[in-house]
């Protein structure tokens, strides 16, 4: 029965412990809605035929309500609605209250990716690996604007707010890979802000975690788990790809007039974006996001502040000051870029900041580890 309804209503698989409960109520309400709508439509159709106009001078009696009808009209829907609400709210409280034995994972949303951090490491971008059969509590926050962590198969969703922490939890029931999507509009690539939850059997998970925590690797980005290595292609993961070489469509930040907008066009035309990204990920060259004003560590060991002069210098004569960790492969643009273009580029780079919100210190009264008050 459950399966029939699920398929008729196109619901995704039920991969978490709460999914079934949520869906059952769903079936009841939708069925009632359809039945009521059909009844009302049928009744109206019957009236239209039964009481069709017979002559232009028809008169009709004045019919008024009686108390009984009123009570019925108000009472029946009200009780139904309230009953639904209480069942639903009961489930909702369960969905809002992580069980005491849940493991914690910290989730940071930023334009346009999800970062997962396990206490004691590691970090992971785009893939959240969790064990099956164990509740997982997510503590969410955001670095820039509001995002929303949505896993359709788990029937959970929670906004990630800048400057505050929110929480949600789930317990996966079967191993597999589940799509995570950002559900709160957050800008240009909102529709690509995907990630995936990889649910591993407890043994696989344990093995993976051991591997990650071995030695100094613990603070690093996570590497795939054994089952993933064996069977690679992951549809959800592929979507979490930030390819500046095929920017789909027009770039952000207005197309018209302003200097910064022109800089953006120049950057695309001159091929800067082949090596530089504007979303925080490193590519062949360092990202331009938050570049302006940043302290850059150079290969020579010195640090410089990326001001206008440095930016210009980096374009004209990149070999002079090579950023630590990068190959000196950037071509010199001296004589290639016009002065106006350079100005536009600098202006453009200056606009690339991941919002003022970056400077937030998120703090709040208390952090309550699960279990203890």
């Amino acid at each position: 029965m459950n399966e029939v309804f699920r398929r008729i209503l196109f619901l995704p698989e039920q991969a978490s412990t709460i999914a079934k409960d949520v869906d059952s109520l769903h079936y009841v309400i939708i069925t009632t809605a359809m039945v009521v709508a059909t009844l009302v439509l049928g009744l109206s159709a019957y009236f239209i035929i039964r009481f069709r106009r017979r002559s232009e001078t028809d008169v009709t009696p004045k019919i008024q309500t009686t108390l009984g009808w009123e009570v019925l009209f108000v009472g029946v829907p009200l009780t139904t609605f309230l009953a639904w609400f209480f069942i639903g709210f009961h489930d909702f409280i369960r969905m809002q209250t992580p069980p005491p034995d849940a493991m914690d994972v910290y989730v940071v949303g930023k334009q346009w990716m999800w970062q997962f951090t396990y206490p004691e490491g590691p970090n992971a971008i785009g893939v959240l690996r969790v064990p099956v059969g164990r509740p997982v509590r997510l503590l969410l926050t955001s670095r820039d604007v509001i995002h929303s962590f949505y896993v359709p198969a788990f029937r959970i969703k929670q906004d990630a707010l800048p400057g505050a922490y929110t929480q949600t939890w789930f317990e996966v029931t079967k191993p597999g890979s589940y799509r995570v999507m950002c559900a709160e509009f957050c800008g240009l690539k909102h529709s690509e802000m995907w990630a995936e939850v990889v649910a591993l059997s407890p043994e696989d998970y344990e093995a993976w975690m051991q591997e990650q925590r071995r030695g100094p690797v613990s603070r690093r980005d996570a590497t795939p788990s054994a089952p993933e290595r064996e069977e690679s292609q992951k549809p959800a993961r592929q979507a979490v790809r930030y390819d500046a070489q095929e920017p789909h469509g027009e770039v952000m930040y207005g197309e018209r007039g302003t200097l910064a907008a022109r800089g953006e066009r120049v950057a695309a035309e001159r091929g800067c974006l082949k090596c530089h990204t504007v979303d925080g990920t490193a590519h062949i060259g360092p990202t331009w996001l938050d570049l302006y004003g940043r302290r850059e560590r150079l290969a020579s060991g010195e640090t410089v502040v990326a001001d206008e002069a440095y930016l210009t210098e980096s374009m004209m004569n990149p070999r002079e000051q090579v950023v630590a960790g990068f190959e000196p492969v950037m071509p010199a643009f001296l004589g290639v870029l016009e002065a106006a273009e350079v100005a536009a580029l600098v202006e453009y780079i200056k606009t690339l900041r991941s919002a003022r919100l970056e400077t937030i210190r998120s703090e709040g009264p208390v952090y309550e580890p699960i279990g203890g008050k």
Partner: protein
Amino acid sequence: MNPSAGSSQPEVTYLNHETTVGSWLLTRDHKRIGVMFLVLVILALLLGGVFAMVLRIELLTPGPTIISAMTYNRMFTLHGVTMVWLFMIPAIPSAFGNFVLPIMLGAKDVAFPRLNLASVYIYVAGAALTLFGMLWSGADTGWTFYTPYSTTSPTAVTPILMGVFVIGFSTIITGLNFITTVHTLRAPGMHWSRIPLFVWALYGTSVIQVVATPVLGMVLLLVFFERVLGVGIFDPSRGGDPVLFQHMFWFYSHPAVYIMVLPAMGVITEVVCAFSRKNIFGYKMIAVSTFGIAFVGFFSWGHHMFVSGQSTFGSGFFGVLSMLVAIFTAIKIFNWVATMYGGSIDLRVPLLYVLGFIFLLIFGGMTGVAVATTSLDVHWHDTYFIVAHFHYIMVGAVLMAFLAALHYWWPKMFGRVYPERWSFLSAITIIFGFIVTFLPQFLLGNLGMPRRYYQYPAEMQWLHVLSTAGASLLAFGFGLIAIYLLWSLRYGPESTPNPWGSRGYEWHSGSPPAPHNFTQAPRFEREVHDYTVPEAPRVY
């Protein structure tokens, strides 16, 4: 054609007593103002519809189709802004309300005709500012303007915010005018218990407009200040709380959905009575439930914020109160259906739209109740299920009511009859097209398709294609209406004063009415929609 023969049309009507352009632009006649608003909102509908079609075409394929992601984001924002503030909120009150409310009350005009004219120009100014923003570079925040995205978005959010802010004043003025008119300008015989239900609906709407719109105005102003001056009231890095913005926004925008639906319900009441030739079943219940919606509607705004980080207590509070608002709508639906019982029903186009309205409203409303059930909303929030929910109400119900009103009052406003067959054809196209457009969106939402998505997983494509096909049908239906109505303005047969044989009070004046509505002072001697006697109301 109907028993109102004998009463004659006025020779001089509001349309022909002065015909210069100036006499229209500077008119204080509520009827002309209503007609001007009608033209303006239909243009807005057209604009919003064009944006909608762009959205639908883009969504034909999972990847990029015709526009870029940035343009897509602008499109749904502009679609939402245009449809909500430029079209739907002023649509029924400012156009039809302005036209018939004073006539229904037996008044010569609204209380403050000059303010009424001002509201047209304020609307035009606001709309112009919004359009300017759209042309400049659009906005990509969604119609909800959530901070901190809206305060940092590099697009032209500012002029659009200010445009909406300005339009707000037009709404407030209209509301203020209607309330005052109802209180002070009722003709002899117009007791409180005789006020037509359309007027009651507008009265309830006006209360919401006056109370809620300033709140929207200020919250938009706050975003404006933050963008332009950096005052940072919602800025998390200064300790601000973005969720507070959502409270303030929805405190307006939830009641605003009732600003849209209440006048529509008023229209439905009038049309059901007129075409069933029946006194309304449960006058008091409908009037009371109007105010129930208007009042309790203010208590449920937080149901848009179940997953926003709002407290569990808050979600429970708003959830249970949403259930209470829903009841009042249910009451009305039962009363409309019950009105048909024992009537003398003539299935004309307005009544067909009413049937569409009732059926789709139940669906939209019941899915509203479903999303107000907190646990279910977690899955549905910000998916196409929500998109389908509100289009069921706003397009399926309110737009149908708008069309019902347009057809019902068309002869009243312009003294012409429209072609019956064409109108049936387009009504059926629209209802069918609507279902094909938006039913798949419920399923998409269930599947987990988030809204405001430019790209989507490929397995969802066929549902999107279906939806786009339906939208094309819808657009075709609207185009048809536009054509035959324009045709009828010029070539349609002239109408009798009361072509439907309705006993609504507005039919006491001619069709089209005389410049000051009545050639003699009207007296209201019978209940509104009293069909226990065979003759139609006399025309003053």
